[in-house]
C-alpha cells in the first residue's frame, strides 16, 4: 500500500495561547491532515485550533552538536536579568 506523507500536528487548547506539538499522522494532503488530526487528537476536547505541517519541512538541530550548541550558555548567568537593581517603586517584577 502507498504510504502517505507524515505530518506533525500542533494543537492549541481552549486555555492555551500557543499551539503545542502533540504528535504526527499520515495524510495525503493538508486538508486531510487537519481532518485526521481532528479525529485523532481532539476527540477528548483537547483543543480548538489545529496546525499541521508536513514533517519533511521541519528542520531540527543535531543532537551530536548538543555540547557546542547549548553548553556554552551554562556559565553565563549574567544573561538572566537578575543582576539589575530594580527601583522600589516598581512592583510586580
Amino acid at each position, binding site marked *: *500500500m502507498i504510504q*502517505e506523507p507524515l505530518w506533525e500536528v500542533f494543537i492549541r487548547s481552549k486555555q492555551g495561547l500557543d499551539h503545542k506539538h502533540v504528535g504526527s*499522522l499520515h*495524510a495525503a494532503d493538508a486538508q*486531510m491532515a487537519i*481532518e*485526521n488530526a481532528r*479525529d*485523532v487528537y481532539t*476527540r477528548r476536547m483537547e483543543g480548538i485550533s489545529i496546525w499541521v505541517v508536513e514533517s519533511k519541512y521541519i528542520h531540527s538541530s543535531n543532537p551530536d552538536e548538543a555540547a557546542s550548541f547549548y553548553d556554552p550558555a551554562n556559565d553565563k548567568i549574567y544573561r538572566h536579568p537578575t543582576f539589575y537593581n530594580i527601583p522600589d517603586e516598581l512592583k510586580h517584577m
Partner: protein
Amino acid sequence: MQNDLFTYTLHLADNSLIMGHRLSVWTGHGPMLEQDIAITNIALDLIGQSRNFYQYAATITETDATEDSLAYLRDSRDFSNLLITEITNGDWAKTTMKLFLFSTWQFYFFQQLINSSDKQLAAIAEKSLKEVTYHVRWSGEWIIRLGDGTEESNKRIKAALEEVWPFTGEMFLPAEYEKSLLNNHVSVNVSDIKNDWNTKVINVLEEATLIFPGDKNTWMHTGGKDGIHTEHLGHILAAMQFLQRAYPGCEW
C-alpha cells in the same frame, strides 16, 4: 398522534443505529489508522444519536420499553430505518458513498427538525446537526478524492454510486406516520429537502468528476420506513442482538 410520534421517533433512532452499527464494523479494518479512527468516531456519533431518540421514544410509549429493549429486542419488521443504512458496506468507496448520501440527507433533515414543535426532537436535531455537518464534509472529501483520484479509485466510486443510488429515493417519500405529524409541525416534510440535497450532491459529484444519475430512469427501492427490509437487516440484527437474546438482561 402519540402513536405516530413514537413510530416517527423510532424511525429516526433506527436510521442512526443501523448506519452506526454498519460503520462500526470497520473498526480495526480501516485502510489506515487515521481513517479507522475517523470512521469509528462517526459510528459512535450515530449510535449516540440513536440513544437520544430511543430514550425519548421510551418516554412516550405506555409500554415498559427502554432504550435497550427498543434497540435489542425488536425484530426486523418493527425496524423502520431507511434501506440505505442497512445495505452492506462493500469496499471503502461504497461505505463512504452511502455515508455521504445519507449524511447529506440527515444534514438537511435535521436543519428542518430543529424547527419541530416537539421540543425534544428539536433539541436532539440541534445536537446532531453539528456532528452530521462533519460527516458530510468527511465523506464528501472521500467521494472527491476517489472520483478524481486514480483509474482504480474512479472505477470503484463509480460502481459504488451505481449500487447505492437506487436506495436514495426512499429518503424523500414520507411514510403515513410522517404525513400525519406534519399537521402539528412535528415532522419534517422530506419531499421539501430534496432540492437542497440534489444541489449538494451534484456539487460534490461534479468535483469528483462523476455524473449525477438523476432519478428519472432509476427504479428506487422502498419499504424500510414501513418495516419491509432487504435481506441484510436480519443478518445485522442477528449479530447486533445476539447477546441480549442469548443472555436476557445481561449487563456489563
